[in-house]
């Protein structure tokens, strides 16, 4: 009843091929955008923006990136953290060398740098598949972080070995650095996520996305029907790394303010992979839902004992958090291996008939 496409006739090809062909979807998305842009920045306090919403937006972007590679093109990667680090360090190098370039342009530029690095580490994917490839991408993870730690050039020989976001403005408003307000950084992150999510959504519906899915389902067969594995796989690595690179740049410049390579270690790679799988492989919406779940659950678990006035020593709390987190992942995979995206699809099917039983 609430969610019915009956009566919505498409009278042109453009309407038929719209990203959101059903009017309820369009209203829903519009509502979310209005709330995210118009309500949240005024209602949410500093803690919520800084500790919950900004990381969620950034990880959602990274998860979309990994989902393009793993969910659509079928190449398992554990190097997400390293590609994010490339984006972050590239932004730092570019913006300190050329302060006059707009910082948002620099974000996109460093995305291209990350894409280049991604292509290099994607080359083995032509011969290696599945878990072998996952371990091969670990080489990227460890090598790149080691490089950023060892070579002083990457962090401008800063004695502390960290990269710090310098103050930069956009349209006269402070965007990065210590003086940028959480609201500004939130809005910038949100805008990046919305634009890139829309781009990704369109990408996977088109020729490129279909080629990726063909490669994922059976690469030999895909080759036979005329899809070039070399170009397709490397393009998947490039675009995925581009997304991860932008997300990494945002991690340092819009969220943390300053960071070392530890901010991008192997656990970040796992975290993003969790988001993709919990959210649903091969779904843009799923990546966003997965990112929400994985960033919110630890925050909830950390704060839950305090809410019910349960005294808890920190390290015991941390272990209980690990247990619940691990348990939830196993439970969730058993209940719904296809992730949140599938749950949402089922909900939509149900909403069609609701509240009538037939």
């Amino acid at each position: 009843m609430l969610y019915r496409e009956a009566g919505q006739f498409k009278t042109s090809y453009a309407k038929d091929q719209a990203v959101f062909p059903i009017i309820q979807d369009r209203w829903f998305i519009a509502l979310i955008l209005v709330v995210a842009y118009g309500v949240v920045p005024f209602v949410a306090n500093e803690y919520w923006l800084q500790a919950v919403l900004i990381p969620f937006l950034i990880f959602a972007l990274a998860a979309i990136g990994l989902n393009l590679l793993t969910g659509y093109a079928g190449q398992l990667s554990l190097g997400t953290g390293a590609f994010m680090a490339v984006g972050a360090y590239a932004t730092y190098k570019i913006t300190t060398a050329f302060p006059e370039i707009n910082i948002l342009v620099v974000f996109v530029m460093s995305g291209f740098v990350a894409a280049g690095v991604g292509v290099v580490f994607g080359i083995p994917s032509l011969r290696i598949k599945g878990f072998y490839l996952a371990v091969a991408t670990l080489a990227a993870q460890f090598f790149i972080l080691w490089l950023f730690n060892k070579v002083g050039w990457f962090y401008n020989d800063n004695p502390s070995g960290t990269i710090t976001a310098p103050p930069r403005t956009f349209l006269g408003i402070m965007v990065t650095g210590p003086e940028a307000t959480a609201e500004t950084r939130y809005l910038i992150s949100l805008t990046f996520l919305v634009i890139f999510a829309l781009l990704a959504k369109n990408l996977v519906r088109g020729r490129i996305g279909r080629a990726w899915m063909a490669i994922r389902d059976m690469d030999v067969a895909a080759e036979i029907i005329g899809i070039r594995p070399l170009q397709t796989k490397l393009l998947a690595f490039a675009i995925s790394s581009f997304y991860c690179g932008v997300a990494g740049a945002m991690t340092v410049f819009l969220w943390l303010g300053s960071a070392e390579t530890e901010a991008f270690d192997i656990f970040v790679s796992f975290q993003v992979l969790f988001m993709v799988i919990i959210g649903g492989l091969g779904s843009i919406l799923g990546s966003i839902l997965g990112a929400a779940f994985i960033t919110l659950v630890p925050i909830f678990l950390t704060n839950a004992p305090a809410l019910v006035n349960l005294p808890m020593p920190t390290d015991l709390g941390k272990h209980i958090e690990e247990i619940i987190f691990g348990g939830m992942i196993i439970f969730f995979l058993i209940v719904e291996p296809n992730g949140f995206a599938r749950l949402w699809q089922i909900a939509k099917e149900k909403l069609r008939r609701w509240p009538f039983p037939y």
Partner: protein
Amino acid sequence: MDLMNILFIAPFLDMADAPVFLAEVVISGVLTGVMYSLVALGFVLIFKASGVFNFAQGAMVLFAALTLVGLMERGVPVWLALIGTAAVMVALAFVIERVMLRPLINQEGIILFMATIGLDFLLQGVGQIAWGSNVKVLNVGIPNKSFEVGGILLNEFDLFAALIAAVLVGVLAVFFQKTAIGRALRAVADDHQAALAVGIPLTTIWVIVWSVAGIVALVAGIMWGAKSGVQFSLSLIALKSLPVLILGGFTSIPGAIIGGLIIGVGEKIAEIYWGPAFGGAIEGWFAYMLALVFLLFRPQGLFGERIIERV
């Protein structure tokens, strides 16, 4: 020219200058490699029999070592603690099979892989809550004295570890080749459906193979624990055994051993002779790079089954 010298000439001159030192480096590499192999063995066993890429192997090593130390701290004699821990690992295998694997039967590999990462978190949390998270000393009475053979310094503990690994591999080889259960395990590894068709109970086989992997994890836990203390970082060794796995091939027990030795020796030699040229600490990524380059030439690893694709 200078760079070429540092990379291609100086290290070999160093090696030729001090053959005894080189031998020591190689031996210490071999022994580290044996330790990697012990962890990698557990991976191979489970991957062979159930196709599950068990990321939680490292957590199982930590869990086994923690349980053993915990029992011994409560005054249980060593032999009883060993049996007790082995029993705990078998019980764990039962629980994992019943709660985690059975509902996930027929799912894709990546889903099972994810589930084992969840298991990894779970085991680390449970182990550290049950037995405490501070660094513990594990002493099961393995001799630890150094002696010299022909000018080369050796350590009794390391030799003991190598011996244990050799015995373990021997026992596993006999178990897989000669016993009925071993044959059933190999049948399952070859083809799940065919094995089911001839009446091999799949779930029982999984319990057995996870139990065996648990016991291998216990042995690895004892060795690593006695060498560097029982602590959280034990579970990170699992990451180090991944390049060992791909070098040797996911499905080959000898591969795990040879791969471990190559990685162990290669890593030590690279760190000592080529490390200074790169600014040191290349041990962290060298193994992965070695494995990566190797894979480009042999995608299935040294002894892995050939990957045949059919459309």
